[in-house]
């Protein structure tokens, strides 16, 4: 009896070892890829952010000089302000719109497949194509102005991307429109993980659908809120393509489309200041990290992974 147990243990042990080795083997390539192309770059960026670093490498050791310069630089402050404003507007709108659309297409509707596909459709197109279309629709002689003009009965020629009062807002609107579909999908997944029993109980209690939604569905979606909020915040803080496309890289008019990443890109590529650009990137990483952590606290320990 005792001998048998020991052999079992032994085969069990070697079996465990085998499983572990196979496990490491399976994750080897993905993990290597994350180490080499994500984690190593992070460390490297941190390293060179302490130097004046040019196209040919190290020029000078500046210590915290790059970081000090960032906080003295009003262009960076403009970029930070724009990026935070953008995030503060876009994230709640994306979440609200995504959730509403998810709730709608989760109903027993006719042709809900069609609606679901329709809502997701703008998420498909590339930022370059969608921005090109937006540039046209929102140009001073574009469709939107034609509509406004025909409503008002006089020509309306506001250049939406050309004026600082509306340039960033137009990008916000554009991105809320294009990415809400993705958020809808994530919410849809979350909605479907809620057990039907809960609703049945609510129905027996005589709760209306509005009340059911706010009292039951909404709180139960906590993990979904967390996931969507994190994805949305990370994406919003990295806004680049549209700002680059719209302003041609200059962040204009009147700094309104200058974002952190556009600023980073300009310092790296135009000014060839790799060290400084990396310091900007590290600051952005710290912001993202802090906000993600904050969201985690906000949504409680919504079980992640």
């Amino acid at each position: 009896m005792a001998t048998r147990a020991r052999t079992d243990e032994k085969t069990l042990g070697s079996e465990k070892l085998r499983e572990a080795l196979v496990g490491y083997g399976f994750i080897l390539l993905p993990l290597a890829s994350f180490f080499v192309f994500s984690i190593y770059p992070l460390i490297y960026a941190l390293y060179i952010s302490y130097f004046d670093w040019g196209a040919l490498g190290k020029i000078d050791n500046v210590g915290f000089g790059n970081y000090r310069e960032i906080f003295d630089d009003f262009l960076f402050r403009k970029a930070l302000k724009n990026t935070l404003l953008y995030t503060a507007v876009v994230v709640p709108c994306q979440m609200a719109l995504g959730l509403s659309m998810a709730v709608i297409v989760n109903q027993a509707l006719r042709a809900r497949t069609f609606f679901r596909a329709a809502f997701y459709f703008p998420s498909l197109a590339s930022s370059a194509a969608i921005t090109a279309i937006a540039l046209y629709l929102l140009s001073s002689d574009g469709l939107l102005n034609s509509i406004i003009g025909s409503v008002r009965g006089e020509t309306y020629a506001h250049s939406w991307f050309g004026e600082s009062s509306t340039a960033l807002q137009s990008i916000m609107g554009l991105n809320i429109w294009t990415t809400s579909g993705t958020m809808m999908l994530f919410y849809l997944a979350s909605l479907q993980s809620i057990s039907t029993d809960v609703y049945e109980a609510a129905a027996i209690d005589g709760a209306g659908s509005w009340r059911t939604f706010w009292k039951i569905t909404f709180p139960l979606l906590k993990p979904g809120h967390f996931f969507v909020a994190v994805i949305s915040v990370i994406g919003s803080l990295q806004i680049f393509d549209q700002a680059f496309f719209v302003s041609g890289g200059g962040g204009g008019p009147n700094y309104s489309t200058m974002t952190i990443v556009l600023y980073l890109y300009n310092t790296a590529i135009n000014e060839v200041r790799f060290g400084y650009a990396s310091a900007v990137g590290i600051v952005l990483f710290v912001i993202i990290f802090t906000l993600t952590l904050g969201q985690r606290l906000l949504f409680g320990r919504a079980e992640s992974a």
Partner: protein
Amino acid sequence: MRKRLALPVVLGVVVVFAAVLAAGSQGKTDVASSSHATAASGSVTLSGWSVGKTEEELLNQVVSAFERKFPKIDVKYDSIPNYDQAMLAKFSARKPPDVFYLNSEKAPTWISQGLIAPLNSYVSKSKFPTKPFYPRLLGAFKAKGNTYGFPKDWSPLAMEVNLDLLAKVGAKPPKTWAQLRSVAQKLKSVMTGTARPICLATEWQRMLAFVYQNKGSVLTKGRPTFTSPAVRQAVEYYVGLQRDGLGNSPAKLGAGWCGEAIGKEKAAIAFEGNWAYPYLPETFPGLKWRFYPMPKGKVPGTLAFTVAYSTSPASKNKAAAWELIKYLTGPAGMKLWTSKGLALPARSDVKVNFPAPSRKPLLSEAGYAHVWIWPNGWDKVWTVGNNELGAVFEGKQSIPDMLSKIQSEAQSAR
């Protein structure tokens, strides 16, 4: 769908890894082949950006003329889109082309980082005469007594005028600031919708011409002088045109840039350069327009942009590279290069017979053109400058405040 997916996936991964490995073995730095030839022979790579097919063909002609003259040197030319960034990659990899375009705008940054080789020793060794180059153009590529490149061609800003629209109101192309205003006043009646008489770019890369016309300067003896009265007056004149409804920015007119505004007849007058060719005639064939010299303020003045041929310290065939630079910017090469009238010669000893009189006004500005060239770190100054100018156009910023903002940015530029 199971089997249909799995097999291609595995195959695909195998293919990718094979490809990556193959690339790796090819890509290893080839130190052995770096020959330090003393006599000019071997192959050189030549890179620039392309403005159009006609220009590219012309450059190929010039290159073959060179190869006939120097049969031992083999030139490989390729044009690079997104040039500045692409070159940065090549510099970082220490594999720049042997001869390449150097934009005056990029010159300070690239020179200060040691990416461009000084040519002084070659010049003195081969007794290359530098006198014939327009001094203002050559000056753009000099730093601390070294010459880093020789200009291949250049373009000043000039005035694009839509002749039909001017004829409609019976106006002649303006020659002075006062005439520009009065012509614009007349044009107001024929410009409908978003269109305005003048296209005014919200860029210092255009407006600065007016500063020079007012005898102003934003950099005097190495010090920024944005807040000087001459600068302020010029800006007031330029912005005043917009304030009085005589002009507007291209975005407000419904165009991407002023050349396009002319093409779409959103404006009758604009200030652009040689790059209007071949764009305008090709894209808007029916348009009747001409170049005229910039209007004169206190003095005639304009802004110029130039590009040089340079080489890098990392070049492995410097002797041949120098032969190529010498030929391309020498009298024979430049004569050929500018013969079709696509580019303006950077040497006063190269005379061009333009097939059409259209570009003569540009060349006539050579004597008073100021080259767009700034100290290292001024990239950001102009980013700030253009954003501030945009704010001024929107009425959200006053001109003096804008100028002092740019002034302080320029003072702290590094």
